[in-house]
């Protein structure tokens, strides 16, 4: 017993210092661990990721839906269908054969380039988003003459599983009332 006490007393200053050092290191680890946990469970960061995914999907889908080559109509329309969901998807499926005939008859090649896009609304939980997209559409007619047109579109996206897809798309009206 006495020996044990003596042994303790002898090592105490070093022990105390070592203990303090360990506590400080432990405190540091706990503090940074908490910070890391908070960062990895940050809701606004997860929201920001969804926003960026929605925008990327919207820009790609809008470009897809404004691109069609009369020599590869089926391929193009397959892409249209895979970029969309909901009402817009149903409309495309229903009008597909009629539209394909029109494009084959007109012999046009339409390409589009997205100039800019932004998400204006995002409901992360419901999986819905609204976007603005400005794009330039080039239509090459049968006689090889091409015309360019700038277009601005409003799209609505719905999340299906982990992917965002267009569920509505239309031209932004000109001369309408101001909103959003």
């Amino acid at each position, binding site marked *: 017993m006495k020996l*044990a006490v003596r042994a303790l007393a002898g*090592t105490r200053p070093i022990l105390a210092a070592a203990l303090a*050092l360990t506590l400080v290191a432990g405190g540091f680890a706990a503090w940074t661990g908490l910070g890391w946990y908070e960062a*990895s469970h*940050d809701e606004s960061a997860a*929201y920001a990721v969804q926003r960026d995914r929605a925008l990327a999907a919207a820009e790609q889908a809008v470009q897809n839906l404004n691109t069609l080559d009369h020599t590869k109509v089926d391929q193009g329309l397959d892409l249209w269908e895979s970029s969309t969901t909901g009402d817009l998807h149903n409309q495309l499926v229903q009008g597909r054969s009629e539209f394909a005939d029109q494009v084959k008859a007109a012999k046009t090649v339409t390409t589009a380039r997205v100039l*800019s896009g*932004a998400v204006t609304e995002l409901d992360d939980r419901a999986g819905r988003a609204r976007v603005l997209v400005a794009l330039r559409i080039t239509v090459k007619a049968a006689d090889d003459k091409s015309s360019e047109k700038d277009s601005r579109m409003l799209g609505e996206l719905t999340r299906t599983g982990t992917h965002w897809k267009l569920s509505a798309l239309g031209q*932004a009206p000109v001369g309408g009332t*101001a909103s959003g």
Partner: protein
Amino acid sequence: MTRVPGKATEEHAESGAPPAAQGTVAQDTAGGGPEAAGEAAGGPEVPGEAAGGPEAAGEAAGGPEVPGEAAGGPEAADGAGGGSDGHGAPDGRGSGSRFGGRWHAAAFAAAVAVLLLGGSAFFYGAHQLRSTPSAQNRALTDTVATERVSGEVGDGLARIFSYTPTGADATARSARTVLGGRAARQYDDLFAQLRTNLETQKITLNTQAVRTGVIELDGDTARLLVLLDQTSRRDEGAGTSAAAQLTVTARFQENRWRIVDIKAR
């Protein structure tokens, strides 16, 4: 000697020593052989103290435990697994105390190193998570700032691209509060040319921002996509509507968002 260790061990078990202590003894046994174990558990003072009953025995057995707890403690045991090997040794083996002290030091150093490394890894990980381009962009995630910048930019564009034949001064004045940087210089050049036509041909232009989307918002800089509707009228003629799409860079200066660059889309 043969009996004492046996008894000490028995009482050890009776006194309900914590599993850690038993583990310590067991490991020690494996390391130093049965005799060393007896010494460690009983210690030189055991004969006197052992008579005192199980409590004393428990204390004696607990003696070597104390440094062990300080070394790693149960909560740090994961970081210094090797530390437990040295627990029983130092106080039990008089001659081996220097060796044991080194083990203690190593255990402490290992525990501290593990904690510091772990802490640094967490720190770095958190920094990585916070500095992704997604997380840095506050568009929509900071709703107040997003609404403010879209409101001020949309409003500003409507003001600088709306003019009447007699109100050119008012438009030029508002341009000074709305614009900054490159956009201000470009606008001055443009407006100087426009101004003569404006007065002679009696042109009225009315601009509205119909949709505004914030592409990027990072601190005091923002990029927006703005859809404009413009109605122009010459003299008393019918108005014609046109659509315009702009990407605008705005900077927060003097407590308001100023448009510093405009690109037609």
